[in-house]
């Protein structure tokens, strides 16, 4: 998993509560990404970061915010979780080649009840 860890790996939370997911990498990669995976939709980009404090929105950013205060950590926050945010969330980093391939963490399964 390219030195990427995600925490927690599983979480059940109630509608309306805030939730923060953490992605941690050990290899000093500049680019980091958050995706959600849902049946029939493949992977959809939520937000990404191209450096400390530098982030941009993806395809499905509504209801999510991110922060990156250190190179190694990229946090995804659901300010007020909704049932539609029940999903599997993956973090990825861009590899060191110039060819843009990404490498993924093991994922976090989030259930909002």
């Amino acid at each position, binding site marked *: 998993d390219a030195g990427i860890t995600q925490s927690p790996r599983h979480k059940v939370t109630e509608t309306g509560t805030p939730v923060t997911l953490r992605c941690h990498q050990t290899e000093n990669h500049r680019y980091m990404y958050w995706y959600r995976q849902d049946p029939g939709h493949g*992977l959809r980009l939520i937000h*990404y970061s191209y450096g400390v404090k530098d982030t941009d929105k993806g395809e499905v950013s509504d209801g999510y915010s991110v922060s990156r205060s250190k190179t190694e950590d990229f946090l995804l926050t659901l300010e007020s979780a909704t049932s539609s945010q029940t999903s599997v969330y993956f973090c990825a980093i861009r590899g060191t080649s110039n060819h*843009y*391939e*990404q490498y993924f963490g*093991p994922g976090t399964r989030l259930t909002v009840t």
Partner: protein
Amino acid sequence: AQSVAQPEDQVNVAEGNPLTVKCTYSVSGNPYLFWYVQYPNRGLQFLLKYITGDNLVKGSYGFEAEFNKSQTSFHLKKPSALVSDSALYFCAVRDRDKIIFGKGTRLHILP
């Protein structure tokens, strides 16, 4: 905008037979194309990429992919399928700093 399409939700292949998982792309400019595999309860694993050069790209686990510019396709292939190849496969294309994924094709290899 760049995009890829995987026309088959599921592909069934008998063990030992050749397999093909289809992908077509739509890009402006030269495409950077990728294939990923996802085994149950795991993250995506990078299989191979096409950037430029030889149209037949070899990757991990005996997979290869054929880039066809005239047909705007990038099909994933393997000469002899294994039961352990059963998984979810994603085609993807670079879009500036991002990668856009297809919806995935579930491959079932039948013993």
